[in-house]
């Protein structure tokens, strides 16, 4: 399994005098790696992808494919399969024609094309719709045609711009697995753009969390989730309690509470973040932070129990799976909540 190495070096895109849409972005993608570009709307994901694919000119920086500088190459000479955010299917061709197009451009023989197109359509479960026009398909079906069209050419790099955003939950799950499978099997180096963090966590080898045209953090899903590098990342990936505190003498003060920090921390204002499902209704022990508070509100959603607990002037959202025979706490009850010190995320507070 060869795979292609993709390197972005200081990739920059400026539109006029505005703040750059992509700002000196550098990223090294290993051969066959599946990288997620995750970030809020407008952070420059699509722009980055389009520069990699050669659809827009970079204002600065380079794109290297297997060490070769392709920054100046037009898209048709880059051998990259792209799935567009809005599909961009050819309206005047049927589904099979759309999928066959890339193969025709490669000068493949008729019979071979037909076989490949059929296989690709089966892969995305659209074999029965081969003769339909794009406008006769649902959004999700169009998206799958776009995917088949990009995959069938077996490109050296696959660029996916939110390819699953229009599918229903079940199909989405299936297509996720399908994309991962194909990607692994073919060993195609893949950049996957999404603003759905669950999708990024579930699918990617590594995730680049983007904010304002830069990479805020690059790491494995586990890294990103467990060790977010900044308040932004912690907030964007997964949900968090976000509590203002103050660091002093290596410990953290929240109102009149004092808790332990997982690592030495410089004194000053901090933001303390704790994932709601990492907090439990137990007494802590060694290596745990424990606080007492009173239940303000209880929301029971069947499999999850969400409780807001006030302590030290702050509100802690606690989420626990419901358990048989354990009645949910009542509003106003005094409770003890605890979480591992290691689950306490501390970031110096950006003073505006």
């Amino acid at each position, binding site marked *: 399994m060869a795979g292609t190495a993709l390197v972005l070096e200081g990739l920059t895109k400026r539109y006029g005098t505005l703040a750059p849409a992509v700002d000196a972005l550098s990223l090294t993608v290993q051969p066959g790696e599946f990288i997620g570009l995750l970030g809020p709307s407008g952070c420059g994901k699509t722009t980055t992808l389009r520069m990699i*694919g*050669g*659809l827009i000119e970079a204002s600065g920086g380079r794109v290297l494919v297997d060490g070769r500088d392709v920054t100046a190459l*037009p*898209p*048709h000479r*880059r*051998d*990259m*399969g*792209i799935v*567009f955010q*809005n599909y*961009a*299917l*050819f*309206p*005047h061709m049927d589904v099979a024609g759309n999928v066959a*197009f*890339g193969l025709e*451009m*490669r000068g493949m023989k008729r019979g071979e094309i037909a076989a490949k197109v059929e296989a690709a359509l089966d892969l995305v479960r659209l074999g029965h719709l081969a003769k339909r026009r794009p406008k006769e398909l649902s959004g999700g079906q169009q998206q799958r045609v776009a995917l088949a*069209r*990009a995959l069938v*050419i077996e490109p050296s790099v696959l660029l996916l711009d939110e390819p699953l955003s229009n599918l229903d939950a079940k199909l989405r799950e299936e297509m996720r697995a399908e994309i991962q499978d194909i990607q692994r099997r073919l060993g195609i180096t893949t950049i996957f753009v999404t603003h759905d963090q669950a999708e990024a966590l579930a699918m990617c080898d590594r995730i680049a969390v983007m904010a304002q045209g830069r990479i805020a953090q690059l790491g494995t899903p586990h890294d990103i989730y467990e060790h977010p590098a900044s308040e932004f990342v912690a907030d964007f990936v997964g949900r968090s309690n976000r509590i203002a505190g103050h660091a002093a003498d290596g410990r953290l003060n929240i109102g009149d509470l004092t808790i332990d920090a997982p690592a030495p921390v410089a004194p000053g204002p901090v933001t303390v973040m704790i994932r709601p499902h990492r907090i439990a209704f137990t007494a802590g022990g060694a290596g745990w932070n424990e606080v007492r508070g009173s239940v303000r509100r209880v929301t029971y959603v069947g499999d999850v129990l969400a409780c807001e607990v006030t302590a030290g002037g702050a509100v802690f959202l606690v989420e626990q799976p419901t358990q048989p025979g354990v009645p949910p706490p009542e509003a106003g009850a005094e409770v003890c909540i605890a979480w591992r010190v290691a689950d306490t995320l501390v970031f110096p507070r950006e003073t505006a």
Partner: protein
Amino acid sequence: MIGRAAHRALIAALFLFLLAPVVLVIPMSFSADAFLVWPPSGFSLRWYTAMWRETKLMEAARNSILLACLVCAATLVLAMPAALVLARGRFRGREALVALLTAPLLLPTIVLALALLILFVGYGLIGSWPGLLLAHLLVALPYGIRVLMTAVSTLPPAVEEAASSLGAAPWRVFRRITLPLMLPGVAATAAIVFLVSFDEVVISLFVVGPELTTLPVAMFRYVESRTDPLVAAVSALLVLLTLSIVIVLERAVGLGRALGK
């Protein structure tokens, strides 16, 4: 209720006013009389047979058809790249260029005609094919550019990018994607330009010569000297031609859609 009835009557009256000349021409063309009189005293096909013997008119008709076809082809070849660049390009002076290229649409035709006359006399282009072609192109190109620009701007987004990412070089993108998707616009342009050229009379009057003339000019000359219903028969055929072009276009691509309405 009365208001609505009045409204309908008004619209009917307007239509009558607009179409009356066309409608009048048709019974007139079947007149059995030797002169243009209304109503005709009897009906016959004599003028439909007589017109084919009118060699001057027939030659002018052939010229007009050939000219319209040439203008059509030249307009498409010139206006297509222009429209692509003007509708897509992000360069300084784009707006000004669009305005400049489509300005002849607004200019009084008589002014253009006069300017061309002055210019053409100096170059010996009066009454020549190149002169006529140039003059008609001047009128047709702005239409062509306008309609094709509309066609370009209604192309679905990103399909050309998709094609090029799939390995299609620019000319293949144009041939396989851009052109087929613009076909309604191209057909509309062809039809409009054909009719504009075929119908052009003001400028033609100034630049035709004794050896080379167009049908509208020949008809104009004819009625100056003769007053029989022969021109009515020719006109009726022209109405038929125009109508069939419009209907074919409407059937094929939907005229409204092609014009971007």
